[in-house]
């Protein structure tokens, strides 16, 4: 093992430990704000692993999109809906958690056995390395052109769908003058009344 391989192995171990620890924190911590910040840690260590895998462009995209957009979006979501509420714990909660943990461990065992047993035929071709970005661009504009365009349509659909879903319902115009510079919103009282009616039904 020469120096480069040793450095790679050590950085892989450090990044893997960071990633698994942060992922366990995301799932297990009680406070959801800590979970959201640890999720950023998971994304950053994933990006380091992408660099180890000669994928510099994807690593940069990972940091820009996941840490910069998705994580911030989740933090904003937490700020918008964070309400301290005591979850009513059933008496059998620990049983469900234990069963789920067992199933997940079993799944990991299965996947791990499959990974270790399979004889991977490693390629000996020269890695694209620094030219990876050029290669990705060539793929995107030749043989993956249709998925690329479909992805842009999908993003547009997600944009419109998110706006439509997150917008408040508008009241029909009932003659009342709205105060200036305010969107006509459905009052909370009416929404609560609707909900009560729904529950009664």
């Amino acid at each position, binding site marked *: 093992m020469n120096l480069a391989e040793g450095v790679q192995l050590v950085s892989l171990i450090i990044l893997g430990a960071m990633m698994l620890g942060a992922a366990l924190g*995301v799932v297990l911590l009680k406070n959801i704000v800590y979970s959201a910040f640890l999720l950023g840690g998971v994304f950053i260590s994933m990006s380091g692993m*992408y660099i180890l895998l000669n*994928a510099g*462009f994807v690593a940069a*995209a990972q940091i820009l999109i996941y840490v910069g957009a998705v994580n911030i979006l989740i933090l904003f979501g937490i700020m918008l*809906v964070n309400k301290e509420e005591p*979850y009513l714990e059933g008496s059998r909660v620990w049983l469900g958690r234990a069963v789920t943990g067992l199933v997940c461990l079993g799944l990991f065992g299965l996947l791990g056995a499959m990974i270790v047993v399979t004889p991977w035929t490693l390629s000996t071709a020269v890695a694209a390395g620094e030219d990876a970005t050029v290669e990705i661009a060539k793929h*995107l504009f030749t043989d993956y052109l249709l998925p690329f365009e479909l992805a842009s349509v999908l993003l547009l659909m*997600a944009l419109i*769908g998110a706006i439509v879903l997150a917008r408040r319902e508008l009241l029909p115009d009932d003659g009342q003058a709205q105060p200036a510079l305010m969107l006509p919103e459905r009052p909370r009282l009416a929404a609560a009344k609707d909900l009560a009616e729904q529950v009664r039904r």
Partner: protein
Amino acid sequence: MQLEYFLLLAAALFCIGIYGLVTSRNAIRVLMSIELLLNAVNLNLLAFSNYLDPADIKGQVFGVFIITIAAAESAVGLAIVLAIYRNRNTVDMEQFNLLKW
């Protein structure tokens, strides 16, 4: 041997994500678990791309597509959570029974 390390890490991350997906009560934590799952798949794709197909890196193209889909998914998912929170005033998964019967 390095390929197996990456694949094992991705499998571990996937299992942690599934555990979080099943046991979380908070809807936002469920969304975070889905992000973990997508990241595990992405790590798999990039590992295969580097070790099995290093010259013609198609795995990285798929990785970019998955990152795109994940961004769209999280935006729509958070919008759904916000809409449910506005109607039900809670984010507890156990109380979302609008479609149950």
